[in-house]
């Protein structure tokens, strides 16, 4: 079956993703690599640094709409949140809260906090979360894009949770504790992280989409991410008691309905989906099959 070539988001570098998402030539990088704002800490560990500390930030336009954007480089130290890395993202979002572009796009590709800078990274992660709430308070939405090779774990996963909306591919993984961490701490019988199909069933983009946390499921194709992100650009809705009550009710109901499930297939079956086929469905097929 002849396949049309895709421009893979999963494989692209952070710079390639930014270039592919924004309108050509519109991106202006802030603190570009020539500024050499590298980690002041990695040297202590004899670890190499990167000129952008693993995150590209800046401004540009998305289908003509002015946006701020940050993109984590999953291949540099697992896209980890170090001091400079986190501060660049915090600065960008606060800048957006002040200048009010139509959205902030967050390309999350991160194993979480950088261990060598654990305290700085964890505090920095929560500074990002506070900044997101600040941007949303003034109406600037933060849209997360997930589908990088590193996944989205730890502090980064909670940052994703704080976004207005997420776009993800089936290749995306989103969870607080990574499968390897759960296996290391709780034992292989709790989570066999080498069972790749199990890892993706549990943490992958499809499962997150079926629960609604991911608003749009796309194929691993940068233009598909671009279209989906653009369609989600709308002013952030203010936090309200009734909407949070509704949100909480849904989460409580999820526990009541699926709280005893130990495998995604059980969940999909309860949702009335063909559980054995979900993994092989395309984004469009699953979107059509998703229960209302």
């Amino acid at each position, binding site marked *: 079956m002849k396949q049309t070539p895709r421009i893979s988001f999963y494989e692209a*570098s952070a*710079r390639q993703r930014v270039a592919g998402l924004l309108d050509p030539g519109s991106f202006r990088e802030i603190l*570009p*690599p*020539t500024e*050499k704002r590298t980690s002041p800490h990695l*040297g202590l560990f*004899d*670890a*190499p*640094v*990167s*000129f952008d500390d693993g995150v590209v930030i800046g401004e540009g336009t998305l289908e003509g709409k002015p946006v701020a954007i940050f993109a984590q*480089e999953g*291949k*540099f*130290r697992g896209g980890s949140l170090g001091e400079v890395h986190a501060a660049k993202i915090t600065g960008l979002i606060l800048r957006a809260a002040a200048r009010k572009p139509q959205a902030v796009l967050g390309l999350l590709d991160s194993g979480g906090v950088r261990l060598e800078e654990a305290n700085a990274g964890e505090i920095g992660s929560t500074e990002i979360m506070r900044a997101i709430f600040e941007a949303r308070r003034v109406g600037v939405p933060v849209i997360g894009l997930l589908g990088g090779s590193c996944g989205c774990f730890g502090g980064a996963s909670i940052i994703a949770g704080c976004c207005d909306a997420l776009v993800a591919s089936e290749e995306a993984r989103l969870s607080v504790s990574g499968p390897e961490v759960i296996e290391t701490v709780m034992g292989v019988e709790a989570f066999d992280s080498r069972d790749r199909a199990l890892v993706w069933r549990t943490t992958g983009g499809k499962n997150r989409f079926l629960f609604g946390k991911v608003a749009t499921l796309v194929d691993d194709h940068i233009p598909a991410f671009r279209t989906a992100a653009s369609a989600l650009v709308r002013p952030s809705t203010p936090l309200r008691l009734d909407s949070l009550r509704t949100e909480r009710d849904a989460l409580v109901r999820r526990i009541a309905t699926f709280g005893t499930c130990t495998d995604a297939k059980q969940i999909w079956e309860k949702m009335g989906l063909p559980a054995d086929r979900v993994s092989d469905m395309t984004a469009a097929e699953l979107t059509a099959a998703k229960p209302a």
Partner: protein
Amino acid sequence: MEHLSFEFDGGVHAPKSGKAYAVAGVVASSNLEVLAQPQELGGRVRFEVDTTAAHFQDAWRAVITDFIERRQPRDVLFSINDFAAIPPVVSLRLDQAWEGLE
């Protein structure tokens, strides 16, 4: 970590894209990042290398000499963060960064 600096006579080609910088590669195991910046160096080329693999000065010199001979660049600063890449990968990234400025 080891820091290495090299400066050589350049060739006949100055960067012509007008871009302020080009980056090739990512700092990941067996890989490296090369940042190329046009800079007035009186026709010379400079290389600032930070590498996790110590004692490979001769190999770096050989790869860089070869690159200059091959591409003939001038007035460019190459800044490199290396995570133990093998010579052919270094060579490939130098070419890609240079092509980004051409």
